[in-house]
């Protein structure tokens, strides 16, 4: 077994994860609890971006409605909590069920189409969820809903303290990374990637690409739903704003700038996004202008994202 990682990028990523594992300790030493908040939020977004990457990066399905699952997950905590049901397993079960079902039904319709249609339909369905929650006056409508207590798990699993919640998020992130890694290297993932490049060929090889894609779409939706469940617990205040379509756009940005279709790309992309958001909004209230210009520049001039630059190092090393 190799002790040292094989490539520069693998080394960077291993170090990155190790740093994340001890982050709460570092922040308590330097006495900056705000950073733990920021990091928790970043990791939740990273889980969402990882789930989007599964369909967008590996599967080539450009979904512009992924934020809907964040909202669904959050409301699967918020609505039971509104009726004083705080059992965490109930929240988790409900999240998996509802986001899976929503992904199955909308996916079955979306995946019949391609290209421009697919993008617009995923967007339309997420807006449908958005407006549905806006019009549900019982659960706060536009104003949202306050969650007074976090999901309750047995003591050793509790997410009550910020550090405990952080490790919850970190563990889910690790599981997601491992799961996606196994998934894309299994036959299932090969079929998904294969049908992105040449669907006709996959079909003539005997694979029902529609069913593979739909399964992939549902898995992605469920993971993002779980990210939403964590987000609901983290913010303790939920509103339809969480699933606005700009959030879906931001998720795409995170996936693309990190490097779509790579395991760690979304993680790097999310880090870049959270950093930009904090840094730019610190220097100017008009930070969306800079962010927007960066998006345009990214497409017109840059390719491959941050991961692309890192793997350029790898290629150099192989040659050298």
């Amino acid at each position, binding site marked *: 077994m190799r002790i040292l990682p094989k490539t520069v990028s693998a080394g960077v990523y291993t170090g990155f994860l190790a740093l994340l594992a001890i982050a709460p300790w570092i922040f308590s030493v330097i006495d900056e609890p705000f950073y733990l908040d920021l990091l928790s939020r970043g990791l939740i977004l990273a889980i969402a971006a990882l789930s989007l990457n599964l369909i967008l990066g590996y599967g080539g399905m450009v979904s512009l409605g992924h934020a809907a699952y964040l909202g669904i997950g959050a409301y699967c905590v918020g609505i039971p909590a509104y009726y004083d049901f705080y059992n965490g397993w109930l929240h988790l079960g409900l999240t998996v069920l509802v986001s899976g079902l929503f992904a199955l039904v909308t996916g079955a319709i979306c995946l019949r189409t391609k290209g*421009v249609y697919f993008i617009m*339909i995923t967007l339309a369905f997420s807006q449908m969820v958005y407006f*549905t929650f806006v019009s549900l006056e019982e659960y706060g409508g536009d104003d949202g809903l306050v969650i007074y207590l976090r999901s309750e798990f047995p003591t050793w699993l509790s997410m009550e303290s910020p550090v405990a919640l952080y490790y919850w998020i970190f563990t889910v992130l690790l599981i997601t990374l491992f799961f996606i890694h196994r998934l894309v290297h299994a036959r299932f993932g090969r079929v998904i990637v294969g049908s992105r490049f040449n669907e006709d060929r996959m079909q003539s090889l005997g694979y029902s690409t529609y069913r593979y894609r739909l399964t992939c779409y549902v898995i992605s939706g469920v993971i993002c739903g779980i990210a939403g469940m964590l987000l609901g617990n983290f913010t303790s205040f939920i509103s339809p704003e969480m699933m606005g379509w700009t959030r879906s756009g931001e998720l795409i940005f995170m996936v693309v700038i990190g490097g779509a279709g790579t395991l760690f790309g979304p993680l790097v992309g999310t880090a870049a996004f959270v950093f930009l958001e904090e840094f730019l909004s610190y220097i100017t209230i008009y930070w969306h202008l800079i962010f927007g210009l960066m*998006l345009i520049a990214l497409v017109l001039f840059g390719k491959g994202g941050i991961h692309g630059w890192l793997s350029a190092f790898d290629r150099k090393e192989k040659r050298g």
Partner: protein
Amino acid sequence: MDWNLLITQVLNGLQLGLLLFLLASGLTLIFGIMDFINLSHGSFYMIGAYFCGTVVSMSGSLLAGIVVGLVCTFAIGAAVEWFIARRLYRSDHLDHVLVTFGLILVFDTLVHMIWGAAGMAIRLPDVLNGQVSLGTLVLPTYRLVIITSGLLVAAILYIMVSKTRLGMLIRAGASNRTMVEALGVNINKLFLIVFAIGATMSGFAGMLIAPITEASIGMGNEIIIIAFVVVIVGGIGSIKGAFYAALIIGLMDTLGRSYLDDVLELSMPTQYAETAAPALSAMLVYILMAVVLAFRPQGLFPPAGSK
């Protein structure tokens, strides 16, 4: 039943439908001909309203505001096509999404920087500000103006698309772009014109509605998504489809919001109906889209001979 209310609501639905048509007709052509997904189409709606409002507040003339607004949205639309969209027609749809999402952020923030965060009210001339009464029915004059001008633009567009050479090229482009290119048409010029005209119509819709709702940041981002639904239901690339789908969706949305609770009350207790009706009417348009996609994935009126 209150017939006056019904007629008012039908006219409101018609008004929404025609606004949607102004947005969707440009959008459907940009999708259909250039295969370009333009999320920022709603930005022109906002920009048109702000330019118009500024000129109105300086000159006091709504007509001047609209003329300046039309010219400006045409120019900005052409600039976006020239500098950005043009480079991306052959690239991935993902690139279109990212670039036009970036454009929305840029336009929204620029409007915020220039005009401030508060909305901008546009004063109507007194002639248009009154009401027209037909028997017991009293209607705001300006709503009738919106409906008339919407229909007028639709008619002009129809004549342009079905009777002129430019229209012929547009129809040909929507059906089979490669063939049009192969026949030696200057496709770059055609794309530029289509994009700019689309932007202008989107801007015009924004100018029409702004005196009622006032111009505000992000005003285009909400309606543009319903315009996407219109494009999908009508069939990508089809102006006729956009027209019928816009009217159907405008009427369905408006009438759903005002009458769905009465309909639901027939089959369930009042309190449930009052909770369910708003949620269901918010979903109505999207349910229609899902049904159309399930039975006619190419839309209700796809352009002739398209794949």
